[in-house]
């Protein structure tokens, strides 16, 4: 798993994939989708989506790799299992989409809000499409979900006609391909968090931020220590998460985005424009008096400056 490119520029979204096993192009395959680093408790580091696929005929062999019990594993055990998957590369393929915390923040906080579910679904769809585009003969897809399963299953079934789609909560404990995808995603996330290159020039930064979960005292301590009153946090932190927002609300300086002001302005202007019909019949020049500044200046927010 070569993460060097992402480590060099960790502000966007990045795809990484294994070689496609030849058998996957000729035999019917099953594919599992899972993610790491998403849950409502996480507020730092990347979110990683993973897919793992193999021929349907090899389902039992995949099961024998013991990838099934991934939930209670620690980092070292996960690495071990990933090694096993890597060794099975003659029939197992995988692909990952790494979403940087910066990308998550900016997508979720943008004006046309892009919520996490939509972001997650689109990422999963992108990866499944990648497998298809690479020639994988997909017949079965299994997906783990946090949101409503039926709706998601319907959405994916419509998007990928001819493929049997199964969406279940805790799918990683039900289907070995999903469990394998979960391992790939978690291992990638572990490695990215470990090797995170802070683009910010913050000198000797304490790299021990714990797990990234806000209920981890190490993480809490780190978040408090590295709160800058103006900038808030480095891009490692997801600003869209309530933990970060709450800390900034209480300890950072307030910031007001002009989008809100502008909306208020246009609303007030609208009310002004909705004059009664009767006002057009009166001879009063009140309306004219208000219009003293030429539009050229108001359009450009140019004002005669009389005092500071």
């Amino acid at each position, binding site marked *: 798993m070569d993460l060097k490119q992402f480590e060099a520029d960790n502000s966007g979204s990045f795809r990484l994939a294994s070689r496609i096993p030849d058998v996957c192009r000729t035999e019917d395959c099953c594919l599992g989708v899972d993610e790491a680093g998403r849950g409502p408790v996480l507020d730092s580091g990347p979110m990683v989506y993973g897919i793992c696929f193999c021929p349907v005929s090899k389902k039992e062999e995949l099961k024998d790799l013991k990838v099934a019990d991934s939930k209670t594993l620690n980092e070292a055990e996960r690495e071990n299992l990933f090694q096993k998957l890597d060794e099975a590369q003659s029939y197992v393929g995988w692909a990952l989409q790494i979403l940087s915390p910066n990308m998550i923040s900016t997508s979720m906080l943008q*004006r046309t809000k892009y919520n996490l579910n939509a972001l997650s679904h689109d990422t999963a769809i992108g990866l499944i499409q990648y497998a298809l585009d690479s020639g994988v003969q997909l017949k079965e897809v299994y997906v783990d979900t946090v949101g409503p399963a039926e709706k998601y299953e319907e959405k994916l079934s419509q998007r990928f006609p001819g493929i049997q789609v199964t969406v279940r909560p805790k799918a990683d404990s039900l289907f070995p391909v999903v469990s394998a995808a979960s391992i790939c995603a978690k291992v990638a996330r572990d490695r990215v968090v470990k090797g995170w290159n802070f683009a*910010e020039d913050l000198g000797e930064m304490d790299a021990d931020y714990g797990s990234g979960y806000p209920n981890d005292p190490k993480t809490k301590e780190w978040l408090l220590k590295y709160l800058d009153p103006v900038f808030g946090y480095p891009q490692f932190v997801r600003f869209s998460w309530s933990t970060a927002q709450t800390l900034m609300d209480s300890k950072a300086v307030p*910031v007001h985005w002009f989008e809100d002001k502008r909306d208020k302005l246009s609303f007030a202007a609208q009310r002004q424009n909705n004059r009664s019909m009767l006002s057009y019949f009166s001879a009063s020049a009140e309306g004219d008096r208000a219009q003293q500044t030429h539009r050229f200046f108001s359009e450009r927010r140019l004002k005669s400056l009389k005092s500071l």
Partner: protein
Amino acid sequence: MSCNASVTCLHLSSLKGAEKAPVHLMPCEIEHTGHAQVSQYFTATTKENKKDKTVSFRGRGLKGQEISCPQGHTGLVLKEVDRHGSDQEDRKVKVTSVFDKLTYWNLETPPTSDDIVVMAMDWPELAEAIHGTIED
């Protein structure tokens, strides 16, 4: 600059020692006046692209571009010199730095020539055309 009774004075001597500084016009109001770790957080993470620059501030994506001050104009960063007594209406400012170009940032939308600050730079040339002396 004067209106009614109060006068604001600019200490021109401060112009001599003033150095050029990079200036950013943000699409937000930051309730803070004073030092900030701009180079460490902002400049260090700014990306220079073909058509614009991108950076995030508090998790929001910004897109910006550099523009120059109008011909014959210099940008000044002013700082108010102590107000000894609040009954004094006159105010004093000095120049802390100068700039001949600045980077302005839009919230998410790509910078274009329709942006207000770009259009505002039209004024000096237009003013000259309207009010300037005409040589016979």
